[in-house]
């Protein structure tokens, strides 16, 4: 199964190259340079993982992360940053980021994280379905 990934970064030349490399590795990739568009795409599409730049124009990456997690709690978000600080990493994990990777990223490492993200998302979705079934069974007193 190919992973569906959303890449969000304000550097178009970065997005183009990374998206091409990911597609060559069998992933289904969407890209955007805008935080607002990223939020829209997350609302409309079911992604296995979002790779998000921490420093986005107009909207801080952590804000984007928080909003995405509210809209789609099961979504796995990997943050990319020029400089990873302990404080930012802790904040990102606290707000629900799956991981925090420093630029320039090693695509092998990132691909591995995306595979993990996809598996993790599937577990969360299954758990959600199980909970729904359990609730329904309790309601119907089965």
């Amino acid at each position, binding site marked *: 199964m190919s992973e569906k990934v959303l890449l969000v970064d*304000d*550097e178009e*030349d*970065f997005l*183009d*190259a*990374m998206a*091409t*490399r990911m597609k*060559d590795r069998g992933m289904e990739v969407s890209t955007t340079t805008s935080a607002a568009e990223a939020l829209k795409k997350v609302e409309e599409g079911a992604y296995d993982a979002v790779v998000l730049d921490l*420093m*986005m*124009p*107009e909207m801080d990456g952590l804000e984007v992360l928080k909003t995405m997690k509210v809209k789609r709690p099961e979504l796995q978000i990997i943050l*990319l940053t*020029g*400089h990873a600080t302990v404080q930012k990493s802790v904040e990102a994990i606290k707000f629900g980021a799956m991981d925090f990777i420093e*630029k*320039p*990223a090693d*695509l092998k490492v990132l691909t591995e994280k995306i595979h993990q993200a996809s598996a993790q998302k599937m577990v969360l979705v299954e758990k959600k379905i199980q909970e729904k079934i359990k609730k329904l069974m309790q309601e119907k007193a089965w």
Partner: protein
Amino acid sequence: MSWNWEVIGETGLQFFGKMSASISHEIKNVMAIINENAGLLEDLTVMAEKGMPIDPQRWKAPASRIMKQIQRGDDIIKGMNRFAHSVDEPLRQMDLSDTLALMGALSDRFAAMRGVTLVLESASSPVPVLTNAFILQNLIWLCLDFAMGCAGASKTVFLKAEKREGGAKIRFSKLQDLAKAETGSFPGERERALLQALKADLVIYKEMKELHLTFPVQAEG
């Protein structure tokens, strides 16, 4: 006239740190783009080695992106070098227009983060001032930071250096929200200390939606 060294020193250090952090972030971005595009070239080479037919056009885009980023990196490093050398001498003959262009380039990322565009209007001739380069840059940055906060819906700040009688002037214009801005705390202690050191003046023209920084031809007699 005595300088408020305590404030100037602290403000200067904060400014130097902020600019250095931003420059290093920009360089990291350049490296990340080069890394991805070099990786793409490597992927294509591996595919070609395996006998897959690769359209030469596929090599062209990453190669040209790498060239573009090397140029961008070189520009960033040149700016960083000029900025770092601005502390070399207490007084230096400068072209205000040129300094404004450098500050615009160094502030571009901060502007982009706030969704603001900086438009530098070129001067018809050099605008000479003899002043302290680092303190001047610090003052321009603080005014620019304030001006960006007043850009309003147009999200654009126009900058221009020009000669005036007995000195020079920097004009920050089209500040749509200047009338609404809380100007009680601006210029604050930091700006006042820098203005005093440069013998400069700052005037806010709310109706004209402009901020003017004026300088004497020579900061110290």
